[in-house]
């Protein structure tokens, strides 16, 4: 197909594809799936962190966390807008999320059990997210690429804040240090799983790479993340919960153990510790908010009618 070849040519030359331009259906579908999944992750991601806003240990930490959660909702908004340029509405995407047809990052199905989890999420989860997202700034689809540039800036800010929480805890009382270690132990493996299954088990990958929707393999990103994060854990004097972890002089990289992929697929398929809670909270917010959305629309209709009537007089 010459149209497809021309399209691929543009991508290979590093051109950006814009919404009104021709694109293969597969490209459009893949992007809608990926961007909306990413948007859903931002929205659902408000919940585990939001869980600690009311219990933040100082007013400054409370303000920082509020600002962060607000940013996440903002990222959700950019991303839904980017996806909408591909011809799907925000309500349709919500419907897919609420009905369970669309996914969100499985990391958010783990609970936040102490204040240290807020630090660990910033440090590890945002760290892993950035690792995934930095290459997406160069994604072939213009609106997604531009949204990612904006998002990555804020995310790295969040990551530093998370690391700062961990530093304070690790320099703090014995109880705070234990809290930090405990958080690392619970978030380490789920963070590694954020890069998706091992390359051999990953679907969609080859085509997405050709389309420059994806630029590195899951395993490459995972390795990068480990190499970046382990020295930080050492710096914090925290112990990464992986007996197989050790520096490989030859590769200039860390060797590390295999995540529990059984757990990964369980969580993906709905059996995580908080799947029902997270999705339930979003569905409840949506359902409970129906009267508000309807009220606003009804008012807008009345207002438009009044304006028309006034103009006609």
């Amino acid at each position, binding site marked *: 197909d010459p149209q497809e070849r021309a399209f691929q040519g543009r991508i290979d030359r590093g051109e950006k594809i814009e919404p009104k331009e021709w694109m293969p259906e597969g490209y459009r579908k893949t992007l809608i799936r990926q961007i909306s999944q990413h948007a859903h992750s931002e*929205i659902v991601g*408000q*919940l585990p962190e*939001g869980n600690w*806003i*009311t*219990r*933040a*240990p*100082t*007013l*400054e*930490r*409370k*303000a920082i966390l*509020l*600002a962060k*959660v*607000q940013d996440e*909702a*903002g990222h*959700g*908004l950019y991303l*839904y807008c980017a996806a909408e340029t591909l011809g799907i509405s*925000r309500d349709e995407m919500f419907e897919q999320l609420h009905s369970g047809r669309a996914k969100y990052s499985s990391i958010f199905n783990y609970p936040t059990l102490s*204040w240290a989890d807020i630090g660990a999420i910033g440090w590890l989860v945002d760290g892993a997210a950035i690792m995934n997202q930095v290459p997406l700034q160069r994604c072939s689809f213009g609106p997604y690429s531009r949204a990612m540039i904006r998002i990555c800036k804020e995310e790295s800010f969040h990551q530093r804040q998370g690391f700062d*929480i961990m530093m*304070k*805890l690790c320099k*703090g*009382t014995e*109880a*705070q240090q234990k809290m930090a270690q405990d958080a690392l132990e619970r978030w380490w493996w789920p963070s590694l799983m954020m890069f998706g299954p091992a390359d051999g088990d990953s679907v969609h990958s080859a085509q997405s790479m050709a389309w420059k929707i994806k630029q590195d393999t899951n395993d490459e990103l995972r390795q990068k993340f480990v190499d970046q994060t382990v020295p930080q854990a050492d710096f914090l004097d925290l112990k990464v919960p992986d007996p197989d972890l050790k520096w490989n002089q030859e590769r200039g990289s860390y060797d590390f153990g295999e995540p529990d992929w059984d757990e990964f697929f369980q969580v993906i398929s709905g059996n995580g510790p908080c799947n029902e809670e997270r999705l339930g*909270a*979003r569905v*409840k*917010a*949506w359902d*409970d*908010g*129906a*009267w*508000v*959305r*309807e*009220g*606003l*629309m*009804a*008012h*807008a209709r*009345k207002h438009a009618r009044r304006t028309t009537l006034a103009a006609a007089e």
Partner: protein
Amino acid sequence: MADKALFEFLTRIGDTTLVLGHRVSEWCGHAPALEEDIALANTALDLIGHTRMWLSRAGEVEGKGRTEDDLAFLREAHEFRNYLLVERPNEDFAVTITRQFLFDAWHRLMLISLQESSDQRVSEIAEKASKEVAYHVERSTDLVVRLGDGTEESHRRMQHAVDILWPYTGELFTDDETDRELSDRGIIPLPSSLEGEWKTHVDGVLSAATLVRPEREYAHKGGKAGVHTEHLGFLLAEMQVTHRAHPGATW
């Protein structure tokens, strides 16, 4: 104590923004629309920001070395001086927005007046906070009008919210000895002096929203004197738990 009356006022306003900020923050991730999630988080953030300025200053005025966090996290309910209105539970979006509107309309007038305070720090904080609050009042006013004059259900819920919250607004305009002293010293306006303009604003908005101001004159009081509703204790239990569980820790 250096200035007992001023300390009292600073905790009244600082506790009020703290408690309301807490209530609003409870919505994070649960709002009726994504834009509302953002707006509510933003409002909460502003209010916590104001709290930090008010309570830090309260600690300085008290002169016992208490920080904003000592005041926020290590006092018990009876030491809190917030108005009862802001500790009312969120219930639904109608109650949340109506509470915000009734409060914002007062907050704006109070801050405008405080900008003229004879106390320089009070006037500086009021000026900083005013800009954000001008936006809050615009936003909550707009939502009250749109939801009051929306569907039958949104109207019903908004009217219910006005009815149940109304008895908690009277307290905003009561004067006590502290108020009179500080007003005489030019530091704050007499709360009662704000009532006329507040009512004019509120009446106008309610009327545009096709909502009715309740006739009932009865006003719940006590917050300014530390006598709260049963809700505050639970709110503080949650707010203070992490801080209290780790005495002396830094975060």
